């Protein structure tokens, strides 16, 4: 069922997408905002162009403009030609004819991209029947075929599933199945793997690469992840403040960037250190462990902790016999895929979830044996920073009130003046100007907000800081600054830090020791320099192998190696 390419594509020098001086203006309450200006780029059939940049750079706006899916308050200028049709100014009827057939899109958030009340097979069939005169039964059969093609096991049954019955990776596969249903000439993928675990990300990227190669589809890949770019793209366009600052082959842009912004961006990307091929890790590992044993009484210690939610058949074993300790002045990284129990473990450490069995010792006191009042006093010694700085700050309070709140709760004796002085001091510490105390969180940028969260966590001078994915909602350059601040303050104040993250590169840089979680168990733990460089378990090895590094040459080798290992594993199983 190969689509017939219209000759128009060839007439245009073989480009399936041609953006020519594209501009997008949003009309807002405060006046017009130019989100995209003078963007010109092209994608040839079978080629992948990565559009990279930080949040607010306009890269997603460009992608939506190419689909004609811009929001109602946006106006596009210039030309965006898809297979001979200019999308700018095309009417809805014309666009509906193109979308899902000539050009289609894969979105960032598989959790919300599908209609929750319609079976996935039906949603795929709808895309087919939008463009082809086939019977409902034929469309349904083709939907099953597509599910098989995107690697969903038991596609006949899965076609009858509702989105909530599928995992995040499977949902994204369904979205991809919808996108390739009519063999589009151009596939636009807007952060297609950002919401997924690294291992799932690697699978989805493999899938997209295979599908694009099979059908000669051109791909416009929008992403902020340089590792993904290195893994997937042929060419790269770097966007900054609505304009393209640099375009070129992936090796040139990532290894020999010419524009200052690209250089800055790349230097901020945390890089996963990988063991040189052939280097044996055993000896180094033993050394590290021997010399650098953490000293002092742990700030928090989990001993053989299990957590079970629910009862009977529906019981979920969120944690199974997990033990770890965080000592003053050190950072313990907690890594693992989603659902591995890392957030549950951090909540147990906070005393928010009582363990079903096992014990939690906080600052030397057994939590199960402390009374509510004493537990509250203990909690004053913990600071918490959560992932989403927008959701974790009360939008109706000023920054000063947000930061002062722990003082109001735990140190009631303070006068207003004393509180203000403490708030000012902690704002200095996180390198925010004191004036922000009078502003509201929404007036601040993402990085500033996260520093407000940090200031609130540190205002009581805690002995333990629990940071649950504190930088995963931030751009790399902002992430770098926030991590730097946390590191400096830790040196100054000597608090213990429990650092939960899915980003192995960040943990490698930031944490001294690491616990690798898998399905509720601590699969492996040790010094970061040992465990993440010379892992002992296959799981950690797979996890590390799935992380794309922002060097196209190295990444090509890693990918080949990973696929070879997977293939070997498969033949072993069969044999």
């Amino acid at each position: 069922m190969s689509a017939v390419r219209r000759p128009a594509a060839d007439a245009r020098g073989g480009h399936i997408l041609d953006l020519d001086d594209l501009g997008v203006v949003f009309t807002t309450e405060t006046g017009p905002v130019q989100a995209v200006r003078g963007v010109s780029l092209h994608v040839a059939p079978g080629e992948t162009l990565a559009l990279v940049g930080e949040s607010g750079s306009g890269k997603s706006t460009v992608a939506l403009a190419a689909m004609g899916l811009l929001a109602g308050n946006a106006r596009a200028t210039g030309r965006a030609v898809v297979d001979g049709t200019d999308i700018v100014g095309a009417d809805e009827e014309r666009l509906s004819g193109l979308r899902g057939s000539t050009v289609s899109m894969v979105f960032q958030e598989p959790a919300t991209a599908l209609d929750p009340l319609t079976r996935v097979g039906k949603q795929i069939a709808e895309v087919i029947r939008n463009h082809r005169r086939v019977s409902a039964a034929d469309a349904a059969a083709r939907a099953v075929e597509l599910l098989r093609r995107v690697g969903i096991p038991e596609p006949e049954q899965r076609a009858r599933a509702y989105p909530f019955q599928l995992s995040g990776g499977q949902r994204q596969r369904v979205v991809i199945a919808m996108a390739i249903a009519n063999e589009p000439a151009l596939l636009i993928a807007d952060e297609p793997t950002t919401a997924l675990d690294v291992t799932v990300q690697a699978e989805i990227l493999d899938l997209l690469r295979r599908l694009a190669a099979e059908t000669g589809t051109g791909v416009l890949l929008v992403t902020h992840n340089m590792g993904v770019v290195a893994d997937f793209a042929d060419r790269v366009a770097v966007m900054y403040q609505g304009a393209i600052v640099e375009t070129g082959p992936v090796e040139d842009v990532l290894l020999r960037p010419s524009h200052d912004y690209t250089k800055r961006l790349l230097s901020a990307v945390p890089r996963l250190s990988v063991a040189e091929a052939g280097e044996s890790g055993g000896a180094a590992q033993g050394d590290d462990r021997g010399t650098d044993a953490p000293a002092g009484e742990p700030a928090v210690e989990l001993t053989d902790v299990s957590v079970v939610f629910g009862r009977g058949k529906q019981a979920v074993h969120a944690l199974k016999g997990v033990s770890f300790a965080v000592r003053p002045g050190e950072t313990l990284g907690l890594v693992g895929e989603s659902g591995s129990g890392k957030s549950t473990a951090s909540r147990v450490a906070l005393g928010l979830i009582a363990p079903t069995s096992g014990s939690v010792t906080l600052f030397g006191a057994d939590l199960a044996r402390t009374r509510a009042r004493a537990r509250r006093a203990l909690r004053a010694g913990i600071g918490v920073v959560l992932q989403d700085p927008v959701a974790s700050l009360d939008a109706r309070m000023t920054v000063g009130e947000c930061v002062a709140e722990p003082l109001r709760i735990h140190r009631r004796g303070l006068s207003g003046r004393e509180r203000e002085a403490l708030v000012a001091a902690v704002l200095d510490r996180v390198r925010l100007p004191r004036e922000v105390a009078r502003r509201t969180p929404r007036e601040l940028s993402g990085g500033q907000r996260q520093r407000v969260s940090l200031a609130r966590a540190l205002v009581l001078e805690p002995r333990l800081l629990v940071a649950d994915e504190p930088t995963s909602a931030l751009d790399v350059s902002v992430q770098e600054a926030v991590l730097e601040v946390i590191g400096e303050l830790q040196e100054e104040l000597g608090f213990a830090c429990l650092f939960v993250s899915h980003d192995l590169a960040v943990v490698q840089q930031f944490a001294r020791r690491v616990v690798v979680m898998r399905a509720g168990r601590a699969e492996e733990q040790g010094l970061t320099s040992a465990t993440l460089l010379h892992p002992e378990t296959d799981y950690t090895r797979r996890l590390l192998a799935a992380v794309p590094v922002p060097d196209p040459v190295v990444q090509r080798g890693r990918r080949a190696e990973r696929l070879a290992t997977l293939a070997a594993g498969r033949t072993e199983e069969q044999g």
Partner: protein
Amino acid sequence: MSTYSFLIRRVLQALAVVLLVTVVVFCLLHALPGGPARGILGPQATASQITAFNHEQGLDRPLPVQYVYYLNQLIHGDLGMSYTLNEPVSQLITERLPKTLLLTVLSAVVGLLVAVPLGVWQAVRRNKPVDYVITTLSFIAYSTPVYFLGLILVLVFSQVLPWFPAQAPQGNSVWAVLSQPQGLVLPVVAGAATMVAVFSRYMRSATLENLTEDYVRTARAGGSRPRAILTRHVFRNSLTPVVAMLGYYVPVLFGGALVVEQLFNYPGMGLLFWTAAQSSDYPVLLGCVLVISIATVTGTLLADVLQRVIDPRVKAGRS
């Protein structure tokens, strides 16, 4: 959870709620000053007459005893005798309940049939003149008391324009009432007006919210036309919260019936409740409250079941 065990659990919960309602109402009624004896025997009754009445009706016994006695009768289907109408309460209710149900169900159905498409239409034409006009009318309808609206309806459509009778059908059975449908028009319109106002608002905001959901963008990216997206995806998703609200709306409907029946002289539960309340007719009041609470609990139960049918996530216990 299977649908079967879900139903059993919910019915048990419903029974518990109804039981609790009888306790509360029983206590409230007996805490009122005056008591039924004074009301029934009149101001001239002597103290001994009142004592005799109280003894005869069991009203001089301790409240818990009275309650248990009442409950025992209830289980046997005996709701007691009306103090004033000299008829068994159960008979009074079985005569009138079908007519009230007819009125409320008709009002609800008509109300929803108007409200749901209206809300969707408003959402699609958001911030256009049509939306503003309907919004204004909704607020007027919502803020107008039912009795006032009823009076206006009678004045306009019965007095000025002699299209419909000002009085509801007086037949004793539901069939008799249904044989004069033109007499039902004004009561049903009066009962449905608030419902249209409230539910078109719900439907409008639910639709607006769903129109901004990611799955709409996905459907557009797949080449689905706006109308298809609206009917296939947005409509069903918007209906779930509205269905949930429907369950809570049952008592409001009964409350509305109280006024509408009074206004159009429609011999249903509302009118019965009204007269009983004015003459301290405890058994009738208790019976009516019981029936209304059962109806309310059944309404929420039905709404829950309906939600499970529409939204598979509810059945799986994640929503």
